């Protein structure tokens, strides 16, 4: 329950930040703030467009939302909050949304019949494995994110237990910042890859 509250907080912060960042966009002579914002958003957009292809570009806003949400969630631990991604309810919900989106993309791109047939590719023998993947993919996505966050949290607690001064500093760089961003990246990278696989199959 606690993580839902933090998620609401994250939503509020992100929306307010967006409004503040976009309230005075200019066509000509953009300021430093606007340039950085545009460059960042464009970078994300290009990243997902490359992964999803032209046909899958309709899913880029969702993927951008998810990567921003997971990254902010993972980094919220730095500010003393309990990261929502450390709650399996959250990672499971995200993973379920991902698999729904992946299969929806498949149905949307190939039609229902084509989507059903795509389970027999590359050969009929692998059909059970393909069907199992519907369950395996979200579970792996969910567990990877959850496990990394919990693992990082546990290791950090242990290090803080050994020496709460100075020693946690380099480790927090790795476990909280680097790993947090990497996990956000991996989650979205895999979801995008699965989507593009469904689109191009």
């Amino acid at each position, binding site marked *: 329950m606690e993580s839902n509250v933090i*998620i609401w907080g994250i939503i509020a912060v992100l929306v307010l930040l967006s409004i503040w960042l976009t309230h005075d*966009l200019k066509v000509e002579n953009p300021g430093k703030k606007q340039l950085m914002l545009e460059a960042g958003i464009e970078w994300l957009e290009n990243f997902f467009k490359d992964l999803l292809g032209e046909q899958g570009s309709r899913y880029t806003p*969702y993927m951008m939302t998810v990567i921003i*949400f997971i990254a902010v969630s993972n980094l919220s631990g730095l500010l003393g909050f309990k990261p929502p991604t*450390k709650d399996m*309810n959250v990672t499971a919900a995200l993973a*379920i949304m991902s698999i729904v989106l992946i299969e929806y993309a498949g149905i949307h791109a190939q039609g229902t019949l084509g989507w059903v047939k795509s389970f027999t590719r590359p050969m009929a023998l692998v059909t059970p494995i393909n069907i199992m993947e519907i369950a395996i993919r979200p579970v792996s996505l969910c567990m990877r994110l959850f496990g990394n966050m*919990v693992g990082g949290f546990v290791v950090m607690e242990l290090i803080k237990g050994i020496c709460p001064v100075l020693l946690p500093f380099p480790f927090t760089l790795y476990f909280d910042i680097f790993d947090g961003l990497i996990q956000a990246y991996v989650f979205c990278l895999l979801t995008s890859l699965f989507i593009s696989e469904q689109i191009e199959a």
Partner: protein
Amino acid sequence: MLNISLWNMVGVVVEVLLLYVLLKKFLFKPIKDIQEKRQAMIDGQMQKADAANAEALAFKEQYAQKISGVQSESNQILEDARKQAKNEYDRIVEQANGEAGDILVKAKKNMELEREKAMREMETQVADLALSAASKILGSKTGTDSDLNLYDQFLDKAGDTDDRTLN
């Protein structure tokens, strides 16, 4: 942390979808709009620049044509003036030649007339001389002396008059 609750998950799904809608509205759309506007502006400016360029090229062409027209026109004018001047020159020279010829002819005629006049005068004088010589011979004594004298006299006079008129 590990207990899964369906309602929690539904809550998260709702929250993520809400975040998706809100970010799309407040973050992605404004940035996309501004980028499209900028693109449109750049395209417009490019088009404008192209149009201006084409216009300038057309003007250049026009001016080049005009300049070449002026060049040929001035050449034409020069040519005409030269031709006219040559005609005028030829005409004047011809006229002058004609006048000079007339003057020469007239002068020659005058000279001829003058000479004829002189000759006639001379002839009359010679006749006068002969007449006076004859009268003298008739008037004076005859003889060789007088004959000689007469000759001398005649020669004197004739030679004198001859010399005078011929020179």
